[in-house]
């Protein structure tokens, strides 16, 4: 650090980063020479509520609120974990409906991201334009689930709403709309010289770094790591479809691992989602949508269930994992652990930002599509100037203690 270095705090309140996270950036002129990330500016205690206050059915809606945008992935993932633990598996039709919902969500999330990214580089026209196009999928979601954003469609052992013939028609119409508009979106994002100027060779995350830092989702795929839960560990209907992870070389044969590549990957994924939805609607099997229709009975079954389960879902931002442990005779989960994709995708910010310019911070940070609401889990208390830093060693000690306690409790109930 030379004497010309000074540091700029980006966040927790900053127009570029809409959520509470702090990036401390050391700059020399415009160049970034040091980056540090401070997470956990807020803590909502979602897992605690799930383990102490709520019964599994209430938890579905709590999981839905882990993140405003991924409100299918989180309950989907949690429900999978619970199903894994309790052995109440969904019928086939429910699997397909879940996949349709998850892909609708991916379309809306990626379009939302694309708009935000355009806004970050000061291209507001594209931002408004993309969001206007996004309305169609929002309307579709509203039609299918009853609300624009929170879908409230997951249930342990199935889904809560069926897709009617009318609904199928609407979905097909909507997908046709996106296939038509896709050329336009592609033209705007991939051929506009100013967007290219701001994103080509910016925020490069090499393949090695992506692997080393466990990047997930489009971020990893843009670095040439073909990693996608839907491909590697297919769940539900995806196993029938055979998803292929999209890397930027499918578009133009080269991998730069930069922000532009992330745009490519996300846009292509929108198209992939459209394909998956069309396929799922065409092949929607008939049958029930719930394994256990009677909610009261389901609640009893879950209360009686015992065991642990893991759910993995490819959320729009990457791999989402929920771990759930159920205990007999107790409504709340014994243990619930959420590992949201942003948790993995925050550390890659550091190699991506180093050596860049201040002007790149917003777009590079946005290029991972960060979602702090999923990420935060530890509070650092700052009280009267005294700062409690939770060190790694202390965390480890706490975890060991907790694991022992859990094991003891679990043993006792056997």
């Amino acid at each position, binding site marked *: 650090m030379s004497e010309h270095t000074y540091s700029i705090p980006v966040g927790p309140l900053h127009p570029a980063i809409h959520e509470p996270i702090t990036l401390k950036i050391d700059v020399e002129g415009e160049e970034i020479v040091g980056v540090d990330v401070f997470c956990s500016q807020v803590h909502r205690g979602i897992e605690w509520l799930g383990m102490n206050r709520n019964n599994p059915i209430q938890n579905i809606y709590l999981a839905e609120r882990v993140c405003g945008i991924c409100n299918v992935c989180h309950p989907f993932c949690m429900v999978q974990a619970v199903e894994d633990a309790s052995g109440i598996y969904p019928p086939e039709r429910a699997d397909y409906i879940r996949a349709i919902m998850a892909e609708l969500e991916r379309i809306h999330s990626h379009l939302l991201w694309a708009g935000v990214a355009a806004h970050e580089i000061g291209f507001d026209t594209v931002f408004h334009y993309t969001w206007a196009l996004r309305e169609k999928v929002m309307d579709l979601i509203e039609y299918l689930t009853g609300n624009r954003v929170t879908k409230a469609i997951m249930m342990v052992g199935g889904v809560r709403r069926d897709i009617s013939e009318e609904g199928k028609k609407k979905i097909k119409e909507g997908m046709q709309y996106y296939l038509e508009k896709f050329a336009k979106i592609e033209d705007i994002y991939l051929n506009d010289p*100013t967007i290219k100027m701001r994103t080509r060779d910016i925020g490069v995350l090499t393949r090695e770094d992506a692997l080393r830092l466990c990047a997930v989702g489009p971020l990893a795929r843009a670095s040439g790591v073909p990693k996608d839960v839907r491909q590697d560990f297919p769940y539900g209907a995806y196993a029938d479809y055979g998803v292929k992870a999209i890397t930027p070389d499918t578009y133009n044969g080269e991998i730069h691992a930069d922000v532009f590549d992330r745009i490519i990957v996300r846009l292509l994924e929108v198209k992939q989602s459209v394909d998956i939805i069309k396929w799922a609607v065409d092949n929607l099997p008939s049958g029930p949508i719930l394994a256990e229709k009677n909610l009261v009975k389901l609640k009893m079954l879950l209360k009686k269930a015992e065991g642990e389960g893991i759910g993995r879902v490819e959320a729009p931002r990457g791999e989402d994992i929920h771990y759930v442990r159920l205990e007999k005779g107790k409504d709340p989960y014994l243990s619930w652990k959420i590992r949201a994709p942003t948790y993995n995708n925050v550390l890659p910010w550091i190699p991506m930002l180093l050596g860049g310019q201040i002007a790149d911070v917003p777009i590079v940070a946005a290029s991972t599509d960060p979602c702090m609401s999923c990420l935060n889990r530890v509070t650092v208390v700052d009280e009267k100037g005294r700062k409690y830093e939770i060190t790694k060693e202390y965390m480890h000690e706490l975890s060991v203690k907790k694991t022992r306690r859990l094991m003891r409790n679990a043993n006792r109930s056997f």
Partner: protein
Amino acid sequence: MLTGAFEVIWYIAASFLISLFAIPFGLLTKGIDRKLAAHMQWRVGPPVWQPFWDVKKLFQKETIVPEDAISWLYNAAPILCLASTVTILLYIPLGPFPPILEGHGDVILILYLLTIPSLAMVAGGFASSSPFASVGAQREMVLMMSYEFPLAATVIALVWKISSLYPQEAAFSLTAFARHPIWNIMGPFGIVGAIVLLIVLLLVTTGEITKVPFDIAEAETEIAEGVFVEYSGRNLGLFYLADAVKTVVMSALIVAIFFPYNLSPLLTPNISIPSWGWAIVDFLFFLLKLEIVIFFCMTFIRVSVARFRVDQVVKVYWGYLTLASLLALILIALDVML
């Protein structure tokens, strides 16, 4: 002695009149710009008079001075910025009316005066002692230095042409431009050169009034409004007004240099109304020209591109625009020689 006193009073009154015109018109322009930009972005946008509400609101709000700021400089910067911007208008002809300070200064003076609002912003930015504001102030300086050359080159090329044809004119005065509209005196090479210079000047204007893609000094998503990050209330309101007036200044300059035409010479043979009526018609025509220029140098550009990075801005100004203006200079030189 008496005339001297009268002159001073006239200047003071005129400055008032000018600000009475420039500030509301600048705000209205901002409103129109926002409305048009909104429509180009497929949305409705605020009502045209929204900037007036904004200013009213800002002036009612509390003005906060950061603890570490150099408060006198911090408070003086917005006033200086607005005052200097209004001053420039005194040197620019407004449609049918010659500049109020005619004969006291020329284009070169205007070029110098144009830097003062930016310098005031830089001073205010540094005085507010926020890292974002410092970055913003640095960027503002970079921006200023990079558009200075194309701006100067444009003006000099045109002045050269005029003075070579009419050596008796006071070469650098804007009224000379008004008397000899450049499109009338140029040969074919000169026309091409002048078009290039017009484009250069339009782009310089975009930078001068810090709008996307050259709004690096404010860059909302990067450095949170940069130099203005700490400003609030009345001070921010003054900067807002200065920005509005600056838009008028820059477009009036372009109109004065490139489109000094009036409607009256064209229409007098056919329609007869008193001369003050013609003054009004010409003035309205002038306002229309301003709006058209502003549409192209501000609204249209800012909705159709992304913001550049600092190095890219420098490259655009020092590289492309400087090259373009030099090329235009050569074309005009050819024109003069032929």
